[in-house]
């Protein structure tokens, strides 16, 4: 594995994915900004991040679990092809990509909702 340095991996990914690599990176940045924005809104509203984080973990976990069995389909085969622990490990790692995106999106939405709900309670009080 000595020749698989970060630069080489970048070029292999870039050649494999083309524009999709940048689309995915852009989406990750947008979702990252969404998470930070959600945390800031919760702080401004004085609300804990526990409930949005829990919702994000559950949604992300469910999405990851579903995608574990879809990853083999992406490789032109079926979930039955997963045979060894290392197969499952890599299926989980790949499924974590959409899983973490779903989790980030749910956190952003739940944090905003939580903060907005708190503000409306304060207004009505």
């Amino acid at each position, binding site marked *: 594995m000595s020749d698989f340095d970060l630069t080489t991996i970048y070029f292999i990914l870039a050649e494999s994915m083309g524009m999709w690599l940048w689309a995915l990176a852009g989406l990750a940045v947008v979702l990252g900004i969404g998470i930070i924005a959600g945390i800031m809104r919760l702080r401004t509203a004085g609300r804990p991040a526990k409930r949005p984080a829990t919702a994000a973990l559950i949604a992300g976990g469910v999405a990851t679990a579903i995608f574990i069995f879809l990853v083999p389909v992406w490789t032109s085969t079926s979930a039955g092809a997963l045979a060894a622990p290392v*197969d499952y490990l890599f*299926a989980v790692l790949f499924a974590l990509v959409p899983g973490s995106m779903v989790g980030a999106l749910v956190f952003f939405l739940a944090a905003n909702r939580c903060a907005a709900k708190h503000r409306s309670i304060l207004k009505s009080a």
Partner: protein
Amino acid sequence: MERRQFLVGAAALASVGLGTQAAQAQTSDSRARIVIAGAGAAGLALASRLRRAMPNATITIIDAKKEHHFQPGFTLVGAGVWSPAQVTERNVDYMPRGVEWVEAAVAEFDPEANAVVTTTGQRIDYDFLMVATGLKLNYEAIEGMDVSLIGENGIASIYAGPEQARASAAAIDRFIDTGGVGLFGRPAGEMKCAGAPLKITFITDDKARSKTRRGAVELIYNAHNPAVFSVAAVNDKVTDMFAGRDIAVNYSHVLKAIDPGAKQATYATDSGDITLDYDFIHVVPPMRAPDAVLASPLPWQDGALAADGWIEADRATLRHPRYPNVFAVGDIAGVPRGKTAASVKWQVPVVVDNLVAETAGRAPQAVYNGYTSCPMVTGIGKAMLIEFDYDGNLIPSFPFIDPLKELWVSWLIEEKGLLGAYRAMLRGRA
């Protein structure tokens, strides 16, 4: 030769005189004229790396072919998993800037005069020559066989090209639907991707099982010698797998003739010729050097690699022993094993590093250990990632992957990873 020696000497003096040896560890200011014969995997990878490492050199690449094929993907096309478009690209998209592309084939090698002559009559002088012509698929050496027969009368062959690989996939499907005897095998001499004949056997078995038609087909693998694979550990594993999957093996059977009308194949064996009936046959052609190489003084003059015209080369440096300014890279190199894209990936940096070192006045030190790789597809969705060296030692790149175990993660690398790695290699980035 005089000009080359002058360039090397001048570069060495300049390097010592300016005290820049350390600073130029990976580059050379040499103005050498480098000719690369062939724009396949090895030729393009060489051009890309040399362009960056030797910015003042004049680099010329000679090849008439405009299309570029990702040949490791032919197996997946033959399996019906990929389309021909997924393995077909354009050479122009990988041609590095600052490299002159002569769109002709090399008609003549003249290493005594340090020149090549193209099919258009152009004479090109060089200081260093990289021969990366690839090889010739010699279907004509099998009596009665012709490329145009692929896809007809139960004849398949994934080697000839993407369309022939697709036609082979259709032939496999028809064979499974109709049933009968399927013959597989490989030629006696050196060949590219020696695992492919085994892969296509496994794939046919797997597809027949998926369609619950395995009982309707009889599969026979005709090994060219007393083993199905040259690496002992892999041979033992594949032999066990064939036995477990009811795939019969005939040893020391080499296909010499085919009768498409009668659906009969004749094999040379230790006890004379024998003829087998078939309903399906996967033909792997004998392979040899292209005509221009064969007619030149470059091939081995004696030994096992001489008959088919493989270029004489030091197995550690790929440098020609009789013409030290000539290197052979990729399929054409007369070294044991090493006719895969994975071999090219390891050969090219060795040749480039050594040339850069030499023209910068340093001692060449890079060594090629014979690394090659065969992602042995054993069914749709599973493979064994087999990597080995000249001595047949298994040398896995990934410690978490057992090379002799059928894994989806190995299939993942084959189906999703190799093309990107190959393209990065063509650009000299992997």
